[in-house]
């Protein structure tokens, strides 16, 4: 494969991906007032993140460690700890579990 090819590949990937991201921002100009649509948009981000986290978190090491990490993370976040703290605590849980 020539270097030229690689650069076109990179450009195609970058342009397409970013176009998908930018398009709705340029097309949707109005404030959405419909309650149903607003609710839908309200749920989307949290549902996406939930679905991406569970059950994937159980596959990082073992299901038991994953579940324990999830429970500890949820408890810390519920108590009001910040994002970085919760992340680090989860990392420490997994790291420690591998030393056992």
């Amino acid at each position, binding site marked *: 494969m020539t270097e030229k090819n690689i650069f076109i590949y990179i450009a195609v*990937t970058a342009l397409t991906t970013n176009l998908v991201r930018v398009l709705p921002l340029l097309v949707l100009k109005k404030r959405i007032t419909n*309650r*149903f649509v607003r609710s839908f948009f309200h749920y989307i981000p949290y549902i*996406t*993140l939930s679905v991406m986290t569970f059950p994937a978190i159980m596959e990082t090491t073992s299901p038991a460690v994953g579940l324990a990490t999830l429970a500890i993370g*949820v408890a810390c976040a519920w108590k009001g700890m910040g994002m970085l703290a919760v992340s680090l605590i989860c990392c420490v849980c997994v790291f420690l579990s591998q030393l056992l």
Partner: protein
Amino acid sequence: MTDQDRKVLLKGFRDGIPIAMCYFAVSFSMGIVARKAGLVPATGFLSSLLTRASAGEFGAYTLFADKASYLAVVIMCVVVNLRYLLMSATITQKLPLETGVFTKILVGCCMTDEVYGITIAYPGYLNPKYTYGAMTVAGIMWAAGTASGIAAGNSLPDNVVSALGVALYGMFISIVVQAARKHWKLTVAVIVACLLSWACSVCPGIRDIDSGTRTMVLTVAVSLTFAWILPASVETDDSKVTGEHD
């Protein structure tokens, strides 16, 4: 830049650190795939910095290695990244109406799953500096991870990789829980979504569908259902938004 903007930018940097950590770990392992596709550390760095998509890049590098057509790369990128359409659509509602085209393009380009997650959690209308701050740290580490992965050719010790990998979930948990403890309807929706997600991952047939598609279908299905049966009290959210902005 005003003092307020500088503060917001710094907050973005700080919130971008856990994202950057996870990105480094994930993109490091992606570097191994990129290496097979003929990328060197410099082109890997450039590619990751410009694209910033895990599943998208992973798919793209597999196609590069197969010497696939450019059209195939375009189709793959659109399909795998289709969820960004939804994310950007919700971000339009976070921006003041008078936001300029240039800002919209820049904010749009910052939409990765994780940066989107913290952007949507920003109280009130978005100050784009927050998103820029997070994306700067995260984007550079994402690109650095890919370049390091290509250079190293093999992965970090397994226990370090899995420990770093879970940082991503810690961040997601933090975002979801902080919102869920304020909205009981959201708590119900999140629990239902997790149970369904688990069911889909063990159900024969459905579990073979790639996780990107499953995530998108489940998100749309659960969000639509809950918007219908338990419409969120977005009116109050909106008055909070305007209140803070005014």
